[in-house]
C-alpha cells in the first residue's frame, strides 16, 4: 500500500476539518473540527515516518497528541466559563473579549 494513499486521506480529513471550522458556529464543534485537522496531521506524520522507517515521526505525532489534549482542556474551560457568564455559545456573536 503506497504511502501516497494515506497522505491523500489525510488531506481529505484536513480539508473537512477546515470547512467545519469555517461553517460551524458552536465553539464546541469548532474545537472538534480542530481535532480533525490535528488528527489529519498525525496521519500524515505517521505516513512519513513509515516512509523513512525511523521513529521520529511517531514521536512528533505523540507530541501533537499532547498539544491537542492541552488545547481541548483550555478550549473547553473557556466554553464553560462562557456558559457561566451566560454569554451566547456562538462564535458569531462572540466577537470581542470583554474581560
Amino acid at each position: 500500500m503506497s504511502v501516497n494513499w494515506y497522505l491523500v486521506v489525510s488531506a481529505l480529513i484536513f480539508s473537512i476539518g477546515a470547512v467545519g471550522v469555517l461553517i460551524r458556529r458552536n465553539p464546541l464543534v469548532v474545537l472538534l473540527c480542530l481535532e480533525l485537522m490535528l488528527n489529519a496531521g498525525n496521519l500524515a506524520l505517521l505516513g512519513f515516518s513509515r516512509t523513512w522507517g525511523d521513529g521520529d515521526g511517531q514521536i512528533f505525532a505523540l507530541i501533537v497528541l499532547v498539544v491537542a489534549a492541552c488545547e481541548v482542556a483550555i478550549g473547553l474551560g473557556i466554553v464553560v466559563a462562557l456558559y457561566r457568564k451566560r454569554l451566547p455559545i456562538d462564535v458569531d456573536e462572540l466577537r470581542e473579549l470583554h474581560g
Partner: protein
Amino acid sequence: MEILFFLFSIVALAGAAGVVALRNPFYCVLSLVVHLIALALLFLLLEAQFVAVAQIVVYAGAVMVLYVFVVAYVGGGDKPAPLWRANAKQRALAIAFGVALFVELCVALLGTGLSSLDGDGAQLGAGYGSPGQIGELLLVRFLLPFELASFLLLVAAVGAVALAGRRPGIDDDDLPVAPRHGLVEFQRSAATGTMAEGVGGYGVTVPMPEPSEAVAAAHADGLPEQSVPAGEGTT
C-alpha cells in the same frame, strides 16, 4: 491490506463528515469517536502500534469523555439556534475554500518528486513502533521535547482549572453571601461548590442570613471579593 485500508479510510472520512454535518453537538462527539477509532486502525496499518493505542486511550477515551461532560453541561441542543451560518454566501465560500485546500494539498503531494512516497516504505527494523523504541527515542534523543510536553500539560491543567473553576466574581452575582465562619474570616458567595453545600449545609436551599454591610457594599459596587483566592472552597 488494501481492503482494510479502504474500509478504515471510509469509516474515518464518514466520521469526519458527520462531525461537520450533524446538528446536535452530542452526535458530533460520537461521530468523532468513530473517526478516531478508525484512524487508530489506520495507524496500526502504518505499523505505529504505540501511537494507535495512545490515540484510543487518550483521545477516544479521556478527551472524548471530557467533551461529553461539557456538552452535557452546556447543553447546546436546548435552544434551536441555527448551527450553520445564516449567510449562504459565506458558507459556499467556506466549502469552496475547503475544496481548493484539498486540491492544493493533492497537487503538493502527488506532484512531488519524492519517489519514496510512491513505494511501500523503507525496510523496517524489528522494533519499529513498539513501546520500547518509542520510550528510548523519547528519553534519549527527544528528552527536551518530552519534558516540555509534560510542562505544557501541567500549564494546561492549571489553566483549565482556573478558567472553569467556580469562583466568586465570574458568576452568581445575585446569590446571597455565606456567613463568616469562626476564626477564618473570609467572604465568598454562597454557591462555590463546597462539600458543605453538597450535603445541604448552606447555600441554595437554606435561606441566608443578612450579609454584613461590608459584603453588601462590595456586592453593590460589583467588585470581586479580593480576600478569596480563586478556587478556594474550604471553610
